[in-house]
């Protein structure tokens, strides 16, 4: 806890000291991210720790190779207070006044939206690790890439998995913001195309504190699968409350937050068989395993099994593009758009600004690990169905 923040502070000081000596040589990379406000929880689990880890690792190896010369990385990170106007203003500062060499994206779909047109206009390439929205990808901004799987990918994979498990009926709850609505939209289409019956669909607002009446009504309808398009606190809430009322369908899926280490801690001994949004773990490959270990060593906590790895991979891609073409941002953009990159998630290529290499995935808690179980090509374990009873 305290050690954690001291660690961050110390590493920043270290960074400042090391860059002081090399001030004219350092590659300056700026970003704003939520350290306070409602987005801080997600941003500080899945995104900013990876920025810090990557910069430390690059500098430990001597720096970023730019045009044949090793240069240290200097991160310039500000708090955006989870506020839209602040995030826009900060990127204007970074790009116009500080004239940083590169920028990294802020947290989440809304904030990425707010700075995407700006980055595009000023020609700063940006690979967003936590933006998931058709509306954003539909804008087709040449300098903006998304590396996280988009709603239709994740939901199609989910529907395919349901078909394979012989699921005939489902009940859905979803958060009523952009993320929830886009996903549930994609999900409804996929379910309809596979003739899966939607027995019940309920939306709820951010910050909900009790969903047991909703879950009880769903239990009465006895669906084969429960699907929650939920955020971390609600993911834990629906899991705990489903267990309390003994609602245990064949498939139990809750979206964001199942991949967090917190989920395992909160549902002590009750995670077995729960599915959710996840796309990697330490078994995904040797590089993923190293990353996992390095993350624990630096922050004394595990990375989450979904967006953390995407965030780190986005930095690897940026690094490889820079090492290939130098710091000319238009050329970096072209390199990202046209190349293939080795990352902890495996090779990644982009098509239309979207990650074309990593399909939508489904993960499942099995014996204390969040295993990728769908599609089979990316699976780290075999899917277990039906879900065992809650303890």
């Amino acid at each position, binding site marked *: 806890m305290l050690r954690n923040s001291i660690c961050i502070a110390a590493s920043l000081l270290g960074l400042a000291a090391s860059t002081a000596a090399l001030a004219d040589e350092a590659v300056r990379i700026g970003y704003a991210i939520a350290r306070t406000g409602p987005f801080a929880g997600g941003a500080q689990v899945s995104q900013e720790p990876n920025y810090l880890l990557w910069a430390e690792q690059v500098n430990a190896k001597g720096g970023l190779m730019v045009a044949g010369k090793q240069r240290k990385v200097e991160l310039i990170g500000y708090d955006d207070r989870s506020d839209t106007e602040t995030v826009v*203003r900060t990127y*204007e500062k970074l790009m*116009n006044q500080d004239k940083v060499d590169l920028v990294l994206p802020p947290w989440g779909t*809304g904030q990425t939206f707010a700075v995407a047109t700006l980055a595009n206009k000023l020609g700063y390439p940006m690979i967003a690790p936590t933006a998931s929205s058709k*509306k954003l990808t539909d804008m087709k901004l040449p300098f903006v890439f998304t590396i996280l799987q988009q709603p239709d990918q994740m939901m199609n994979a989910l529907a395919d998995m349901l078909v394979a498990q012989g699921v005939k009926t489902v009940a859905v709850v979803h958060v009523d913001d*952009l993320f929830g609505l886009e996903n549930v939209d994609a999900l409804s289409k996929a379910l309809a195309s596979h003739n899966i019956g939607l027995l019940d669909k309920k939306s709820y607002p951010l910050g909900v504190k009790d969903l047991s009446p909703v879950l009880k009504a769903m239990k009465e309808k006895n669906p084969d699968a429960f699907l929650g398009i939920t955020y971390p606190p609600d993911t834990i809430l629906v899991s705990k409350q489903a267990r309390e009322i003994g609602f245990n369908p064949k498939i139990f899926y809750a979206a964001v937050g199942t991949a967090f280490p917190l989920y395992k801690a909160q549902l002590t001994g009750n995670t077995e068989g729960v599915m959710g949004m996840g796309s990697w773990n330490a078994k995904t490959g040797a590089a993923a395993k190293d990353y996992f270990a390095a993350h624990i060593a630096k922050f004394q906590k595990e990375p989450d099994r979904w967006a953390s790895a995407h965030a780190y991979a986005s930095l690897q891609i940026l690094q490889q593009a820079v090492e290939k073409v130098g710091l000319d941002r238009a050329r970096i953009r072209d390199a990202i758009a046209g190349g293939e990159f080795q990352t902890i998630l495996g090779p990644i290529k982009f098509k239309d600004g979207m990650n074309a290499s990593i399909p939508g995935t489904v993960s499942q808690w099995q014996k204390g690990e969040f295993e990728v179980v769908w599609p089979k090509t990316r699976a780290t374990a075999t899917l277990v169905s039906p879900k065992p009873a809650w303890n």
Partner: protein
Amino acid sequence: MKDWIKWLPLIAALAAVPWLTNAYMVSLLLTCLMYVALAVSWVMFSGPSRYLSLATTAFFGIGAYCTAWGLGHLPWPLLLLGGALAAAGTAALVGLFVLKLRGSYFAVLTFGLSELALHVINQTERSISGTVGRVLLNPPEQDAIYLAVLALALAAIACCAWLWRGPLGHALRGIGADEDRAATLGVNPLRVKLAGFALAAAFAGAVGAAMAGRWTYIDPHTVFNPLIGFQTVLIVMVGGASRIQGAVIGAVIFSLLSEFLRMRFPYFYLVLLGLLLILSVLYLPNGLIALLPRKKAAAHG
């Protein structure tokens, strides 16, 4: 009345800013001006009448949604006017009910209204378009937004000065001092309050309509951010509510200071900002304007 002439060079300099500096300086000043406009619009009504309103968020959000809905169909300057009218209309309508309550009841009620507006728009958007946010495809240029907000801030200041000098201002002050007594002196309190409340709302609505253009993507939680209303009140309290200068100075200092602290101390600037707020209320209880010489007040007697 003539002393506004001496401000002309400053106004001209502010208007020239987009051509003189970079986009960051413009957006920093834009933030200042946005809060100047909001704070002056707030103090215009709430200063003399002492009705502590937290409805600024609602008016700002309503204005922003005018831009979100209308951009691409109507020219942008017209949308600013639309935002102003929509906010003023809302204020006049809800004012009929909420302006009957005083003190903290009014404050909490106006806060509730802002939240209600958020959730009503959220529900409306969901049932009409099936989604919540809106993408602004051809937003206005930043410089245009800056000049629009500058104009709104100046208009708010001029309007406030005009209002406070005229009969409506006197009536509002009378209501603030003793509403029942004001009523016996021939003032129709409800009508006066409605007029003041709606006029103030118009500026907040227009500012919302202008600012929306900056964010590409508009959703209810962004534009109905309760922080906007709270921060406006804080600014006026820190600056001092008895004079227009208080709102202006409060807005400029608060915006610049929080930006400076955020850049300089990225990990604990909010702790510093909180401490400064506490210290300011302990040691500068009458606001920053207490530091200004009071020659104007003397001129007015």
